[in-house]
């Protein structure tokens, strides 16, 4: 029986009680991964639900666009938490069950293999933890047993337990591992892919990220992030959910400790029993018209990125580069903090979307893509006028590329087109303060706010990354929007 049949056979409770009601059960702010996932959960259980998106397109941080005849992806390098088809455990299996999607809907191809490169040391890893074990045994032979102890501790961490173990991962790792450089090499990919906090991670987030990258693995749909977003929207709409694009929220009108109305930028006011916002914590607080203070208890994050995208006339493999992701750092110490320069050239992430185990090549004509992500300073990029911005973008595009090719084959002679995003691009598409890629360092794990019927989901609630964002949307929909419906 298809979803449509089921909908047709069951009569939603709301239509029995209030046949002419214009009141939504739930309004969701933002059509990114978390908002769409929450929407699917609620629409599946017959709620009248509306997702509001101020942009002309869905995706938020994860976007896709066409430029000069080529398709581009932003946000997604790779999906984390890739477990094989049929696996019952782990975040990917859980979210597929919750969204009633099948593993095949995301059409995931596993990575070929990735690496962490520091001066004099190169650690390779893929979706089989044994390769990483062997690499650590080769590069850090004294740490084999310590590394096994770390794996055992990480495996034990319970991620459905709401309280992230708040102890410092840095101090725990220093106790477990006797080689400081190995500690730095482990932090580099985990922080790049999911730490909103500078310098350190809490143990819970470290464990989640370690498992998602090293113990489960990386993969990508052949069609990129657009496939995931399209599947989410298709599912949501198929269940009767409403998606309103170009519909920004002006404010949340508050009466008696509740959101009484959602005032749109077009002047219209719509009502809902509850509102779930993926706009971010401070951003959502600012929307409330009761004068709720915003920054005191939870300052926004400061970590933002620049990313360069180069289209090559050749597949990277043919230049001798077959790695899926290369995490690099040019000294023994890895610095994870707001960049003091426009871009931090000491470290970065190189991703080639071509280098996954696809059934057919990413591009039939044999072109390649190289993307490099580096920490960047939001205030610098925000302060430029249009002309300076263009100029600085091209200047820092070159610097980032020059920095990255210290670690991989030089592809600069094969570049046929480029693009680049900066922290201000992130602000434009996500609305998040400072272009904070992973949101505020302090998460609001229970998703509650000062108002009875306003909740948050997405980066500022808990988990980050695509799998994390989808999990956040599902979790908050389950916890706050389904039980009392």
């Amino acid at each position, binding site marked *: 029986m298809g979803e449509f049949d089921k909908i047709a056979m*069951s009569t939603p*409770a709301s239509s029995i009680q209030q046949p002419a009601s214009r009141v939504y059960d739930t309004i969701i702010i933002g059509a990114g991964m978390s908002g769409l996932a929450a929407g699917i959960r609620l629409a599946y259980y017959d709620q009248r639900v509306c997702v509001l998106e101020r942009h002309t397109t869905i995706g938020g941080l994860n976007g896709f666009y066409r430029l000069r005849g080529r398709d581009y992806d932003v946000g997604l390098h790779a999906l984390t938490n890739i477990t094989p*088809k049929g696996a019952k455990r782990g975040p990917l299996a859980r979210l597929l*069950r919750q969204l009633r999607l099948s593993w095949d809907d995301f059409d995931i191809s596993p990575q070929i293999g990735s690496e962490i490169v520091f001066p004099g040391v190169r650690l390779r890893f893929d979706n089989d933890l044994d390769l990483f074990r062997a690499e650590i045994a080769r590069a850090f032979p004294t740490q084999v047993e310590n590394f096994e102890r770390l794996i055992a501790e990480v495996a034990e961490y319970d991620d459905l337990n709401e309280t992230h173990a708040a102890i410092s991962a840095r101090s725990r790792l220093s106790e477990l591992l006797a080689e400081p450089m190995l500690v730095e090499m482990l932090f580099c990919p985990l922080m790049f892919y999911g730490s909103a906090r500078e310098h350190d991670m809490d143990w819970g987030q470290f464990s989640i990220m370690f498992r998602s990258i090293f113990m489960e693995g990386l993969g990508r749909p052949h069609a990129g992030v657009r496939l995931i977003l399209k599947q989410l929207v298709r599912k949501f709409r198929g269940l009767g959910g409403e998606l309103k694009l170009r519909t920004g929220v002006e404010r949340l009108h508050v009466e008696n400790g509740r959101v009484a109305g959602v005032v749109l930028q077009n002047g219209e006011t719509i009502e809902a029993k509850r509102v779930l916002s993926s706009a971010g914590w401070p951003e959502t607080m600012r929307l409330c018209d009761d004068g709720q203070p915003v920054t005191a208890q939870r300052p926004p994050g400061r970590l933002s990125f620049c990313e360069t995208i180069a289209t090559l006339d050749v597949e990277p493999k043919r230049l001798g580069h077959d790695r899926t992701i290369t995490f690099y750092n040019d000294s023994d110490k890895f610095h994870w903090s707001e960049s003091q320069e426009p871009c931090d050239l000491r470290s970065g992430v190189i991703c080639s979307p071509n280098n996954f185990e696809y059934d057919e090549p990413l591009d039939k004509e044999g072109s390649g893509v190289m993307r490099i992500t580096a920490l960047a300073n939001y205030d610098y990029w925000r302060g430029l006028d249009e002309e300076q911005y263009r100029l600085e973008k091209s200047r820092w595009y070159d610097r980032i590329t020059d920095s990255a090719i210290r670690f991989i084959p030089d592809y600069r002679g094969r570049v046929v087109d480029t693009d680049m995003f900066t922290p201000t691009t992130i602000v434009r598409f996500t609305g998040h303060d400072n272009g904070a890629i992973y949101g505020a360092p302090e998460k609001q794990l229970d998703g509650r706010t000062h108002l009875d019927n306003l909740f948050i989901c997405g980066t500022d609630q808990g988990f980050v990354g695509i799998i994390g964002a989808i999990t956040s949307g599902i979790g908050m929909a389950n916890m706050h929007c389904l039980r009392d419906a």
Partner: protein
Amino acid sequence: MTRDEIKLEVLDILSDIAPDEDLSQLKDDVSFREQMELDSMDFLDIVMELRKRHRIQIPEDDYVNLASMDSTVTFLEPLMKDIQRV
């Protein structure tokens, strides 16, 4: 519904929640959690499906009764005796 019909209905719900699962080997007296690796999110779905399909409201305190097939059927029997299976 009879006990057997309730069991079929629960199996239908489980196949919806975990479409890739082989339910033919499911033992009635062993917990779903143990056999299918269901977590708290999945148990919420069993409750939500019962509400969606049959308007049965199950308070959170009663979720423990949904541990295995036997306990679930016993718990649902009085609640579903007047419902016709379609």
